[in-house]
């Protein structure tokens, strides 16, 4: 009985950590521009697919990971420069629609380059699962959790201690004022897209040994990541992590104790409940807008 509960919990935390990493990417771009970047899932896909295809060509794993992350970073910059920047005076909704278009484009490109098949990536360390009180934990889950924790700490440090991070925050609060004090807002935006792409691709690489990877893996994981970010309160790093973990655990518990048929329904009704009672999410900033 207890071992079953523990198994559901481990499953939930592993999936949840994945969602959290994706949610962090959403948070970052939202903080910089109030845009919800629906191409976030594609960064995840690029990370996984590029690593797999490069290792298949004989590139050593570590180098392949670094190159894949760089590729995703460049793609993030390209997305901001070529798709978002030209529409600079457009409102936020238009920009969000642009990111949806970009995601479809990237997905199509990936399908042409890498085909439609699913690909495997080996575990980073041993493929033997770890057994705790009768429940088993995939050793890759520890990597997901570890990498996730490092990312969160790094992001918190970036936003509170570095000038660039503060510049991003300033831009998000008031673009004109930020420009007046000498912040080059276009560069800041580009930076935000790049960092968020890096985050996404790292997430894609660490989860690929668990989920497999293919050209369309970004759709549903991206969507779940967005749900996690919204539950946590868009814009809050802490919220993204808590939202992701909560979503993962609720999903696993629903599949285990209720019925696997209702797993997704439970997850998506969770966002309704949270937004109904706490419209700004669990950790959302308590801003009152004057009308």
């Amino acid at each position: 009985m207890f071992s079953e509960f523990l198994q559901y919990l481990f499953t939930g935390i592993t999936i949840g950590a994945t969602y959290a990493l994706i949610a962090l990417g959403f948070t970052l771009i939202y903080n910089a521009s109030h845009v919800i970047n629906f191409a976030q899932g594609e960064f995840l896909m690029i990370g996984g697919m590029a690593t797999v295809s490069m290792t298949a060509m004989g590139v050593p794993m570590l180098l392949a990971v670094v190159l894949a992350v760089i590729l995703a970073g460049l793609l993030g910059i390209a997305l901001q420069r070529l798709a978002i920047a030209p529409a600079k005076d457009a409102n936020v909704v238009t920009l969000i629609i642009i990111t949806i278009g970009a995601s479809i484009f990237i997905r199509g490109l990936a399908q042409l380059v890498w085909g439609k098949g699913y690909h495997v990536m080996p575990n980073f360390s041993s493929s033997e699962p770890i057994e705790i009180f009768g429940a088993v934990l995939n050793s890759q889950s520890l990597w997901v959790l570890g990498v996730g924790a490092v990312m969160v700490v790094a992001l918190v440090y970036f936003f509170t201690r570095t000038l660039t991070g503060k510049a991003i925050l300033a831009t998000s609060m008031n673009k004109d004022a930020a420009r007046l004090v000498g912040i080059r807002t276009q560069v800041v935006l580009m930076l935000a897209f790049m960092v968020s792409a890096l985050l996404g691709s790292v997430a894609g690489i660490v989860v690929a040994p668990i989920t497999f990877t293919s050209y369309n893996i970004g759709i549903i994981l991206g969507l779940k990541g967005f749900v996690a970010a919204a539950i946590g309160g868009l814009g809050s790093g802490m919220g993204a992590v808590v939202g992701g973990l909560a979503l993962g655990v609720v999903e696993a518990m629903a599949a285990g104790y209720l019925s696997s048929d209702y797993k997704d329904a439970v997850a998506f009704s969770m966002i309704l409940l949270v937004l109904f009672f706490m419209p700004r999410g669990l950790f959302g900033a308590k801003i009152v807008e004057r009308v």
Partner: protein
Amino acid sequence: MFKNITRRASKFAAIAAVGLLAMNVQAAEPIRIGSFLSVTGPASFLGDPELKTMEMYVEKINKDGGVLGRQLELVHYDDAGNASKALNFASRLIRSDRVDIIVGGSTTGATMAAVPLVAQAQIPFISLAGAVVITTPVKKWVFKTPQTDRMAAERVLNDMKERGLTKVGLISGTGGFGSSGREQTLAAAKEMGGIEIVADETYGGSDTDMTAQLTNIRGTKGVQTILNFGFGQGPAIVTRNYAQLGIDLPFYQSHGVASDGFLDLAGSSAEGLRLPASPLLVPDSLPESDPQKPVVEAYKSEYEARWNEKVSTFGAYAYDGLMLAVEAIKKAGSTDKAAVRDALESIQGHVGVTGTFNMSADDHNGLKADSFRILEVQDGGWKLIN
């Protein structure tokens, strides 16, 4: 005067010659085989090997002198996996291309879209899609070559019973293939008796972890074996989770993942699992006495030599469809549609790649559940279990 007569005579001769020529042309007019397949789009993994197989064997048959002394002509359209396109193309094949027989329909959706049209036009149609609904209830003009998922379910449950496993935990995908497989497994278990489905779990098509469902099944009282009915990457994830959880119950998969791609994805976790599959996966381990052995070996080597890619069970459905059509036309001695249909229905003991076809008025598929072979994964490869 005389000049006039000769002129008339030569005119007459010319007309007669043209007439003769026309008759000759008519005699040598090719037999037109129509086809609509999902060569591109989401079902391209079906349509692509099917089209390659059809092209290749139409060529081969023509080189060997054709059928009834006439050449074959393949008229093909790509429905891209879209049922309404399939309907348009079926209509074009019948009305403007005036084909003699249709062999095609990669997916159940495309097939069922074309069925009413085919029935109305009264033209024989051999479908290459899987679902039970295509030939149950029997439709006068519609035949099909792949086994149904019902047969796969029966084959697996029989193998379980033979091993003394009677309490089954079922886990299935919620996609079309998985949910139809689930229904057929439940129905087959009820009908067969002596075997019971004690757990019934599902997972979504893009789920990335099924440990919760498997833990549930493992915790079900009395469960002796687990069956996964699904398609795509889901079953590979189930297989991996199964190995991670260290479940030691006998494990079965469906024919939906009977391909080498599945082995690549699931890796060493697939070791020891069983599934129903076409003999095409294990041509070398078939016994010499197996009548299908030469057919399977010939198809595999010819396909691989021609296209330089691995043969797939889906291409074999097209091979069987084309060969059944050819045999029916030979038997009928003409391309008269009603005669060909009657001939198709009376085909007995036709040895194909998928199985041995015994058609009848109430069975337009002609295969039995035992045309599936039970394979076990051993040392990263397929092993035939007798």
